[in-house]
């Protein structure tokens, strides 16, 4: 479980995150949504420790990440996996080497066992056939799947995904969403997804927080979204005709 208590972050005296409070539970896909520039990427970077908030508490299963020492932070970092918007695979390594990288760094297992674990992760994302290819030789969707395999190689407790569907077609996005959701349940991880893809919100949003101009404007589940009266949330989620129609159908189903 990850808990945020009164998190504040500012850049050059401009507050970007203002008093964010939230709880992200184990075994659930938690989504952070919001418009571009609302502060959701800054929030994600604060949570993973790439940025340091000015105020507040950040608790990883009751361990305060902001006040702990370097050694304790290192331990928590090894419990984290992250999927970046750009996949962030190491260009100079093959797909298999990318997945093996965290194992080679932190596992004391034999090479055979490390390779077996990496192959298991690649198999989990259906990419065993691409093991000897370089990131530049595979598609964007495959790169994201390799990033997922790398992120789960050390069986993390916390999985962070920064816009995992950006630049992907709807069908591939669906595959990535389902994969993240299945892995979250399977490993009982605390998963945080930073997205503005409404398909993801409606598909896998078990817990959603909506960030608006640095504030946490709303929180709830994908079911709550259809019945919410929050105007700012509705303006954001149901900006397109398609999603307005989806809402009408869903509301009718709920009432009926």
């Amino acid at each position, binding site marked *: 479980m990850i808990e945020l208590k009164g998190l504040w972050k500012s850049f050059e005296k401009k507050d970007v995150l203002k008093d964010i409070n939230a709880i992200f539970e184990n075994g659930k896909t938690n989504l952070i949504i919001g418009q571009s520039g609302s502060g959701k990427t800054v929030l994600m970077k604060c949570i993973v420790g790439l940025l340091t908030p000015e105020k507040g508490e950040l608790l990883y299963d009751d361990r305060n990440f902001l006040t702990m020492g370097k050694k304790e932070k290192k331990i928590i970092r090894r419990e984290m996996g992250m999927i970046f918007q750009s996949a*962030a695979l190491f260009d*100079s390594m093959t797909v298999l080497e990318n997945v093996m990288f*965290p194992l*080679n760094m*932190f596992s004391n297992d034999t090479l055979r066992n490390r390779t077996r674990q990496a192959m298991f992760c690649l198999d989990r994302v259906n990419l065993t056939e691409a093991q000897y290819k370089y990131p530049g030789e595979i598609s964007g969707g495959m790169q994201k799947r390799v990033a997922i395999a790398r992120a789960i190689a050390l069986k993390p407790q916390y999985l962070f995904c920064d816009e995992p569907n950006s630049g992907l077609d709807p069908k591939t996005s669906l595959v990535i969403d389902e994969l993240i959701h299945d892995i979250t349940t399977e490993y009982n991880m605390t998963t945080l997804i930073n997205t503005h893809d409404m398909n993801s919100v409606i598909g896998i949003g078990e817990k959603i927080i909506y960030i608006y101009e640095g504030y946490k404007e709303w929180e709830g589940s994908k079911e709550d979204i259809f019945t919410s009266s929050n105007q700012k949330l509705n303006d954001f989620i149901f900006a397109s005709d398609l999603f307005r129609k989806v809402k009408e159908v869903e509301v009718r189903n709920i009432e009926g």
Partner: protein
Amino acid sequence: MLMGRTFGRPERLRMSFKQFINEMEKLGVNSIGIVLLISFFIGAVITIQIKLNIESPFMPRWTVGYVTREIMLLEFSSAIMCLILAGKVGSNIASEIGTMRVTQQIDALEIMGINSANYLILPKIAAMVTAIPVLVTFSIFAGIVGAFCSCWFLGIMSAVDLEYGLQYMFVEWFIWSGIIKSFFFAFIIASVSAFFGYTVEGGSIEVGKASTDSVVTSSVLILFADLVLTKLLMG
């Protein structure tokens, strides 16, 4: 601060050593060709220029070999060669690390709990400091071979006179001073270029700018260091 993080204890020695070997190949072994080529031709051209410009009945015939040797040993093979390598290797280091920064590969390392500066920069500095003195030695030999070739194939002067000049009043310390200087130059090239790459913010334009800035800065620092080191070692 970056240097403090760079010289920390590696996370996994095995992985850092593997990186060191890769960097040795990429930065050192892959530069042998260009070093040999440039040094060979410069050695030949210096011989021709000296012969044509200082030829006089009052000058001994060995002067050409003597001056060629001094230029190659004292300045060209160490300082000038390192200036050339600052362009080739320095831009490579800055653009590689810069691209890793803008494509979030460095963030990925940090999130895994890896000291990215240590993992990426230390092997490059170690590889450069190991490889460049070897390249300097290769450069000296290639320059001398070039000088001989200008005698054998262009008939510019007698190879025997050149050989006599090359051996005349030879001071072994000059070779060592060139090698000692190259250690410092190697450190400058690797650390300055890595700093510019590591601190990039933005996109491809900034990576390009960091690459150019790294070459300019390391070249200027090499020149300053050359002045100071020459005074200290030879003065």
